[in-house]
C-alpha cells in the first residue's frame, strides 16, 4: 500500500465516522417513530428494533386510537396548514424585499451605503430568542399574538438580512455591462432587471429562498411564544403536544418530527444544485 492509498483510507474513515456522528440522532428519531413506546423506554436500551409499526402515523393523521397512549390525537393538519401558510408567505415576502434590497446595494451608490449594509448584517448577530420578550409585549399591545401575520412578520424580519447579503453577492457577480447593453437595446431599467439580471441571479435567489423557507419551517423558540392555539401553532411547536404532565409520547413526537422533515428534505433535494452554488458562492465572496 502506498502513501496515497493510506491517505484515501484515512479520509474515507474520518468521513464515515463524521457522517455517523451527524446522522445518528436523525436516524434515531426516524427509528423511534416506528417503534412501540415499550421498546423506546426499555432499559437497557434496545438497539436493534424488534418490531416496527405505523401506529403513530395513523393516530396522528387519522385519529386512530389503537395502541396509542389514550391521548386525543393532536390537530396535525391544522398545524400543517399554519406551517405552510407562514413559511411560504414569509419566504415569499423576504425574498421579494431582500432581492430588491440586494439589487439596490449591488448596483446603486448612495451615501453611507456600507454603513447601512453593515447595520442590516449586524441585526443577524442578535440571537432571535432574546427578542422574544420585546416582540411578545409589542404584539400583545397591537393584537398580533396568535396570528399568522404576527409570526410571518417576525420571520420576514429574520430572513431579510440574509437574503440581502446573498443576492447582493449574486448581483455583483453579473457584469454591469449586461444591464447596460440591455438598456441600449431598448430596455428600461426595470426591463433590464426583469429580463437579464433576475434570470441570471436565479441560483442566488433560489438558495436565499430555500434558506428562508427552512428557517421559517424549522423555527421553534419564537413561535412557541407567539402562538397560543391551533389558529397559529406550527408543526414544530405542535411537537410539545406530545408531552403530558408525567409522560412524553416519544414515538408520537418522533413521528411528527419525521413528518416535519419530509417536505424540507424534498425541497432541499429539488433545489440542491442552486443550494450548492449559493453556498460555495457565499464562501468565496469577500
Amino acid at each position, binding site marked *: 500500500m502506498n502513501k496515497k492509498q493510506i491517505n484515501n483510507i484515512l479520509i474515507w474513515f474520518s468521513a464515515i465516522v463524521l457522517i455517523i456522528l451527524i446522522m445518528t440522532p436523525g436516524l434515531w428519531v426516524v427509528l423511534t417513530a416506528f417503534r412501540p413506546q415499550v421498546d423506546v423506554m426499555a432499559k437497557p436500551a434496545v438497539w436493534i428494533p424488534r418490531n416496527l409499526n405505523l401506529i403513530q402515523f395513523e393516530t396522528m393523521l387519522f385519529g386512530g386510537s389503537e395502541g396509542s397512549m389514550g391521548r386525543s390525537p393532536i390537530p396535525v393538519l391544522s398545524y400543517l396548514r399554519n406551517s405552510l401558510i407562514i413559511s411560504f408567505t414569509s419566504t415569499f415576502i423576504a425574498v421579494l424585499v431582500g432581492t430588491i434590497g440586494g439589487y439596490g446595494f449591488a448596483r446603486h451608490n448612495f451615501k453611507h451605503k456600507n454603513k447601512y449594509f453593515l447595520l442590516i448584517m449586524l441585526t443577524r448577530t442578535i440571537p432571535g430568542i432574546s427578542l422574544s420578550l420585546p416582540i411578545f409585549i409589542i404584539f400583545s399591545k397591537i393584537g398580533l399574538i396568535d396570528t399568522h401575520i404576527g409570526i410571518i412578520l417576525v420571520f420576514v424580519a429574520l430572513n431579510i438580512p440574509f437574503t440581502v447579503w446573498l443576492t447582493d453577492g449574486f448581483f455583483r457577480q453579473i*457584469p454591469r*455591462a*449586461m444591464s*447596460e*447593453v*440591455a*438598456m*441600449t*437595446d*431598448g*430596455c*428600461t431599467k426595470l*426591463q433590464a432587471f426583469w*429580463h*437579464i439580471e433576475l*434570470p*441570471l441571479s436565479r441560483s442566488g435567489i433560489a438558495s436565499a429562498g430555500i434558506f428562508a423557507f427552512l428557517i421559517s419551517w424549522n423555527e421553534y423558540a419564537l413561535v412557541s411564544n407567539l402562538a397560543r392555539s391551533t389558529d397559529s401553532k406550527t408543526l414544530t411547536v405542535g411537537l410539545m403536544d406530545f408531552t403530558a404532565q408525567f409522560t412524553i409520547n416519544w414515538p408520537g413526537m418522533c413521528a411528527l418530527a419525521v413528518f416535519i422533515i419530509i417536505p424540507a428534505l424534498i425541497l432541499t433535494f429539488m433545489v440542491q444544485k442552486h443550494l450548492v452554488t449559493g453556498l460555495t458562492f457565499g464562501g468565496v465572496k469577500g
Partner: protein
Amino acid sequence: MAKVSLQGVSKFYGKVQAVKKIDLEIIDKEFLVLVGPSGCGKSSSLRMIAGLEEIDEGVIKIGDKEMNNLEPRERNVSMVFQNYALYPHMTVEENLGFSLKIAGLDKKEIEERVHEAAGILDITEFLQRKPSQLSGGQRQRVAMGRAIVRRPDVFLFDEPLSNLDAKLRNQMRTEIKRLHQKVSTTIVYVTHDQVEAMTLADRIVIMKDGIIEQIGTPLDLFERPATKFVATFIGSPSMNMIKASIVKQNNELSMKTNDGIIVPVPKDKQNSLSVGQNISFGFRAEDIVPLKFGQKPSSAWEMQSSVNLAEPLGTETLIFTNFGEIEIVSRMFTPEQVKSNDVLDFALNLDRTYLFDENSGLAI
C-alpha cells in the same frame, strides 16, 4: 442621418474631472476612433454618448436632437462592449432578437432581421447555441450582430477587440472595417491600441488627461503630429525623442543634446526657434538608416554608433543603437544580417525630424 456632436462636454467623478470640456463633431457615416492611454477620458466620452453616464457639463447631440436628458433606449445607439456582455441565458438567436422583441416587433420580422444580421456576420450556423458554447471571436461577432439588428443611428464600440488574441484581433479588425462598409453607419470606436486606430479610422481623436490632443486622419496624425504626445503615441515603433537645447553655431541654429551632440536645425525651422530654447526633437525609425544598407537621404546628418540589439522581422529589421546616452531604434528594409556590437554609420533625415517645445509640448 446621424452626425454626433459634443459641445463643451465634461465628466466629473467626485472631484476628478475625467473629461474636460471637449468639443467634437462626428460626421454622418464616419468611422471615428477615440484613442489614448487608459484614464484619458475616451471611454467616459463614449458612455456619455450612449447615455450610460450623465453629462455633467455641455451638450451632446445626435442628429439635431439634444441627448442630455434621454435614456439610453431613447437614443437609438448600439454599443459593443469589451467583454461582449452577451446574455448568457439566451441562445445566439435570442440574443440577436432581444432588442427587437423589447421593441414589440412581430415574430416574423424579428426572424428576418436576425437572419439578415447573422448572414452579414457569418454566424447563422451558431444561432441555436448559447454564448458559453462559442469561441471569443464568435462571441464578438454575436455582440456586433446584436448591435446591427437594431439598425441604430450610431454604433459605439468600447475596446471590442482587447479580449482577443493577436491573430483573431487582426481578423476581427478587418471584419469591423468591412462591416462599416456594408452598413455604412456612424461609428464611434474607443481603443487604446494605436494600430487599431490607424487601420480603422476615417478620423482619429487622440485624448490625454481628459482633453483632445489632436483630431485628424490617420495620415495627418502620423505626418503632422501637433504635440509631442501624439508623435510618440502614433506609429510603431514609437518615435525616437531626444531632448536638446538650441545653440548658435556658424551663424546657424543647432540642437545640442544633453550629451553634447550637436545636430543642425532643419532649414525650414531656423526662424521659428530662439537660442536657449529647450526642445525635443523626434524622428521615426525609418528616418534614421544605416548607410551601408540603405539610401542616404538628401539632407542627411551622419553619426556612427554600435548596435545594441537587432530584431529581424522578415521584411524589415529593427536596429537598437545609441544616440549619445539614449537608445534609439532604426528601421532597415534591406534583408542583411546585423549583429550586436557591429559598428554602423547612420544617416538621419533632417527633413523628417519633428521639433517640439519642451514646455508646451506643441510642435514647432
